[in-house]
């Protein structure tokens, strides 16, 4: 799949933003006043920024509002509704925290649930696609949620929790790669099933594409550029996204300033690592339509 910057930004940023909102909704940290304002500003900046980025890949962004209508069948619709609901509920909760020095726990819990629900619905947009075996696995939503929780805990300053969540997310990431690498073969879809040609033992190959030039399908679904660096990029994603942040969190330091700087660095490294992982999530995903072109 074509790794469009808009979708990578969207899933990375909004995943983190909604993760932070979930922690804030549950009262971690239970901040009020100006401190709360800063926390909510960061969370909303990430969540809303990510959502806005996602509209850049629309052919007709001016009609984006129409996307809320089909929640009965469409995960994209459900995601939109969940995101707006989460932002509204958490907005009310934030007003309580910032202006009234007050936490409304029921509202916070609903907001936290909706925030995680948004991450889940986002992941289901990809997971539902049988055409992309690497996404069509239960581990996909597990991975999205684990990243969001780890990043959220990190941003919320929940150091010991973040350490464990980061390690868990890293383990899930490894499992996702391990299973994903076998997914296409396991799906049973081959050029033979795509064309019904060949039969027992015969060799079947794509002889000629429909046109000498490229097309929308090849651009969107058959992205092979840079895949050869996949192993290196996986190592980079794992190290800067998870291992480095964990080290920065557990290293014992005296001064609070250094501690804050290291936490900030951990956040930046984690975001970078998640973005690399998301790039791979798209670039390595093979759509079955490539079989008609003899490509994957």
């Amino acid at each position, binding site marked *: 799949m074509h790794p469009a910057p808009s979708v990578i930004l969207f899933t990375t940023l909004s995943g983190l933003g909604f993760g932070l909102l979930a922690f804030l909704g549950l009262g971690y940290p239970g901040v009020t006043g100006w401190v709360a304002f800063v926390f909510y500003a960061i969370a909303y900046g990430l969540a809303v920024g990510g959502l806005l980025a996602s509209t850049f890949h629309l052919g007709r962004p001016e009609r984006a509002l129409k996307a809320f209508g089909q929640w009965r069948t469409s995960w994209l619709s459900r995601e939109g509704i969940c995101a707006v609901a989460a932002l509204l509920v958490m907005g009310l909760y934030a007003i309580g925290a910032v202006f009234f020095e007050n936490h409304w726990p029921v509202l916070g819990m609903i907001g936290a649930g909706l925030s995680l629900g948004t991450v889940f619905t986002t992941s289901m947009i990809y997971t539902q696609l049988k055409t992309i075996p690497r996404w069509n696995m239960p581990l996909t939503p597990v991975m999205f949620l684990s990243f969001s929780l780890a990043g959220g805990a990190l941003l919320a300053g929940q150091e010991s929790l973040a350490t464990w969540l980061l390690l868990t997310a890293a383990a899930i990431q490894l499992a996702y790669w391990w299973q994903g690498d076998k997914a296409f073969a396991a799906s049973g879809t081959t050029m033979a099933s795509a064309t019904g040609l060949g039969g027992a033992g015969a060799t079947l190959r794509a002889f000629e594409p429909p046109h000498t030039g490229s097309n929308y399908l090849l651009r969107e679904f058959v992205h092979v550029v840079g895949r050869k660096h996949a192993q290196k990029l996986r190592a980079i994603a794992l190290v800067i996204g998870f291992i480095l942040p964990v080290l920065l969190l557990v290293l014992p330091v005296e001064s609070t300033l250094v501690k804050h700087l290291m936490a900030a660095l951990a956040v930046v490294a984690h975001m970078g690592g998640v973005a690399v992982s998301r790039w791979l999530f798209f670039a390595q995903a093979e759509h*079955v339509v490539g079989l008609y*072109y003899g490509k994957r």
Partner: protein
Amino acid sequence: MTELPTTTTRKMGLVIDLDTCVGCHACVISCKGWNTENYGAPLSDQDAYGADPVGTFLNRVHSFEVQPVASPTQPNPAAQLIHFPKSCLHCEDAPCVTVCPTGASYKRVEDGIVLVNESDCIGCGLCAWSCPYGARELDLAAGVMKKCTLCVDRIYNENLPEVDRVPSCVRTCPAGARHFGDLGDPDSAVSQLVVERGGMDLMPEMGTKPVNKYLPPRPKDTLEDQVDILAPLLAPAIEDPGGFLGWLDKALDKLPGGNA
């Protein structure tokens, strides 16, 4: 709107004969022509005369090569080149419809045709992601999703002579490799054809239940040892002809360049 109908009254679709398709791409062109001039946004091209031309097509013809395995009856089987036209298969369980967030994509109850309401489409592309067959393309100029309409603006069009009330690709195909009809009716000509020729689904494991069927190519005939059937007739009857023919042979040899 994006909930699929549980059943449709009819299942209109195409039956594509992989045995007769000659790969001329006439259906590609006629489809592009009809659908650019009629219903919906035109099928645009970008950089049409430049170095890197691309464009939107609702029907494309691939070509595959099959090398059958050797068998006692066919120790050296010839490779087969199979031309493979592909357009929307108007699936019964169309994933492209259910993923659509706006309701722009829908399947009609009356005839099962899968269509896009272009004024509702936001161009998110998700339906194209969900289609296993690559039957949907986002038009770069219009920013909306384009797909085969089964020529819905022809098949019921009373302004056209009756013979033209079939999809443009079907009407155009010079080999008669594309057939149009109701695949929900077991007595229709297309359904009969499917039964007779063992019509098949593409990627049945995807669970899309395509309405369009493909007729497999027939096994190729064995090649005879003597390929050139005219050669025996051209072999000289007498090694050293005499008489008039002998004289003619020699005379022709003497002409410049006439060296037998």
